[in-house]
């Protein structure tokens, strides 16, 4: 395959005058495709934390009053 010779870094960045549009497109794509997983991971972690809290609360109840109902299946 023939590698495209960009001549200089400058040529690569300006993309023959279309630099703003090309890099703008790739830029926004990169930003959104990094942001989305980050936000989702956060949501996942929050869900885990809430679960841990729930568990602590339930076990706290069970410890303080031994005749409680067993936990939900």
């Amino acid at each position, binding site marked *: *395959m*023939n*590698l*495209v010779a*960009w001549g200089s870094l400058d040529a*690569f960045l300006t*993309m*023959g*005058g*279309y630099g703003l*549009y*090309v890099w*703008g*497109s*790739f830029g*926004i*794509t990169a930003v*959104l*495709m990094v942001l*989305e*997983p980050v936000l*989702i*991971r956060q*949501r*996942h972690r*929050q*869900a*885990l*934390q*809430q*679960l*841990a809290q*729930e*568990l*602590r609360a*339930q076990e706290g109840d069970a410890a303080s009053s031994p005749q409680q109902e067993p*936990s*939900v*299946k």
Partner: protein
Amino acid sequence: MTRLNWFTFSSPATFYPLAGKCIPWLWAITALFGLSGLFIGFFVAPTDAVQGEGYRIIFVHVPASWMSMLIYLVMAGWAGAGLMFNTRLSYVMAQALAPTGALMAVLSLVTGSLWGKPMWGTWWIWDARLTSELILLFLYLGYMGLHASIDDTRRADKASAILALVGVVNVPIIYFSVKWWNTLHQGASVSLTKSPSMGQTMLLAMLLMTFCFWAYSMAVALIRARAMVLERERYTDWAQQLPEVRRGQA
């Protein structure tokens, strides 16, 4: 030989760890296809005769468009499965895919605008593809909005499932009508769809990027699905027995 139970992984308890194992592989595939696609797209694919370097936007625009449409189809598929089999995980998958599909639609519109501006002088063109993409975004927003506005999760799942199915039936009708509309109102004399006749390397880069976006969408959807499963199954034993949760306790 035990019979394969098709519904084995429709239980949230079995789905959760399985999805967890798949996700790193999907990220690896995303990186692999992404890097190779970008390499070929920028260092192998030649300059276009008509559009110069500006055409390279298609390496993100086209994958985003295809994904936005594919995800809607898959989403509607899961919605239909949920209605047919009454499996709550199907609804979760549909809900998990929607925001990613909407993101793809937004990306398609934004990159489409950025492509159109230098080529045809305006930030927005009412050509058939962009207009259909906009309407698809509306359908995504409607789906997500309906689910968000109904408090009862079960009802929200089923109602938005019906909406997704109605939408998926409408999509070809909408696309056809928009194409018709576009050809008769002579205002739009140019079309974003008349892309340059593709050289082989351009096509290769585009396909690689499409696979990259596809793996990305699956990874993100699975992470979101796992988060949603935890949120919905908060009071169950299996969720509370998860090692991650137990670890978080100490």
